[in-house]
């Protein structure tokens, strides 16, 4: 650890090439800036502790003036993957996709196939909610113990990304105190779904991740 100063200098140069924007904002060339770019994923116990909440945020760094015209892409499928058996393969999925101003939700249900290719589980439609328009209060719907929301929200992510970039880029050697939240004042397009734990394994630990998939 003590050769750290020199080492850090080398490290900074070595690492400079591969940093984009955290948490997952603009993470990769194929999705960067597009409607399929996931910015963040959260999973936490709900206000009703019998429930778990999944949040998928997409289309990051929307300024207030750009938010009103932002929309969900009808060719995008947002898929929450849930592994209940510990093998990192999805046993259940919750799917969300937009059609004509509404967000439709399917599952939790077993996918027709696991992996990179999905079809929508139309037999397991669980809910639909009007997509909240910018400037309106949140529209929520409920069905079968689940709750649904889709629309613009404040980006809940916070980080001094600018200073992190400066450190990694070699133009700074430390974070500032206090730091400056690069994501302050920006919005994302959010999908929030709350589901009874009994529908996703009930007890124990799940492994979960979110995907965006595009209609072919």
């Amino acid at each position: 650890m003590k050769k750290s100063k020199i080492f850090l200098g080398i490290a900074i140069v070595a690492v400079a090439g591969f940093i984009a924007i955290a948490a997952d904002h603009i993470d990769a060339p194929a999705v960067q800036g597009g409607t399929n770019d996931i910015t963040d994923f959260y999973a936490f116990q709900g206000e009703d502790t019998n429930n778990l909440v999944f949040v998928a945020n997409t289309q990051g760094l929307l300024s207030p003036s750009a938010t009103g015209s932002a929309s969900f892409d009808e060719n995008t499928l947002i898929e929450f993957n849930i592994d209940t058996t510990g093998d990192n393969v999805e046993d259940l999925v919750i799917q969300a996709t937009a059609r004509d101003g509404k967000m439709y939700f399917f599952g939790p249900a077993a996918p027709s196939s696991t992996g990179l290719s999905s079809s929508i589980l139309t037999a397991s439609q669980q809910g639909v909610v009007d997509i909240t328009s910018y400037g309106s209060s949140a529209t929520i719907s409920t069905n079968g113990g689940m709750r649904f929301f889709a629309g613009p929200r404040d980006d809940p992510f916070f980080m001094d990304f600018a200073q992190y970039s400066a450190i990694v880029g070699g133009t700074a050697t430390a974070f500032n105190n206090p730091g400056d939240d690069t994501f302050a004042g920006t919005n994302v397009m959010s999908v929030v779904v709350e589901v009874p734990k009994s529908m996703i394994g009930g007890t124990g630990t799940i492994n979960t991740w979110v995907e965006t998939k595009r209609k072919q």
Partner: protein
Amino acid sequence: MKLNTIKLYAIAALIALTAYNCNNDDDSNTEPIGPDFSGTYIQEDQMGRPAVNTVFVSSSSKDDFNTTIPSNQGAAFQSMFQTNLEALSPAYANPGDTNALGLDSATFTGLLATDVLNVSLDGTTTFYDGTNVLTGRALADDVITVELLLIFGGEDFSENPTLSNDNVDANDKEFLTSFPYLASPW
């Protein structure tokens, strides 16, 4: 079912069908056409834990990482993660160095390369709250500082202090206590 009953049902069905078919008044057909959910959807992006693809995956592999299923990510990406972690942080420079979870660079990157979020269904859900580790991700969790501490902070979070906290500890808006939990947009 008795034969007569079957006949009766058949006749009833026929009448119903005929009656329907005789209805030529197409203008009164207001049956809504549902949305089209057909087709195949192919993966473009995925995410489990925060900032993993951003920090640990080399630029030429970022799209690859997003389209590798989690159960294959460890084998495909762990060694790249370890190389990049050791290049990024002096806290793993010496043999035997670990982070505060007791994980050396190989073990830590083995955990991270499979990019799924572990979530407990039995209580507190947090990325790290001082007690619980990797039991979920709550909105208010300072996940970046946690990751910086695990990357730079060494065995007891004391190493490289100017790199292990970005000093942004909370969101710019209050979260809601009730669904949908996220704050209204700016």
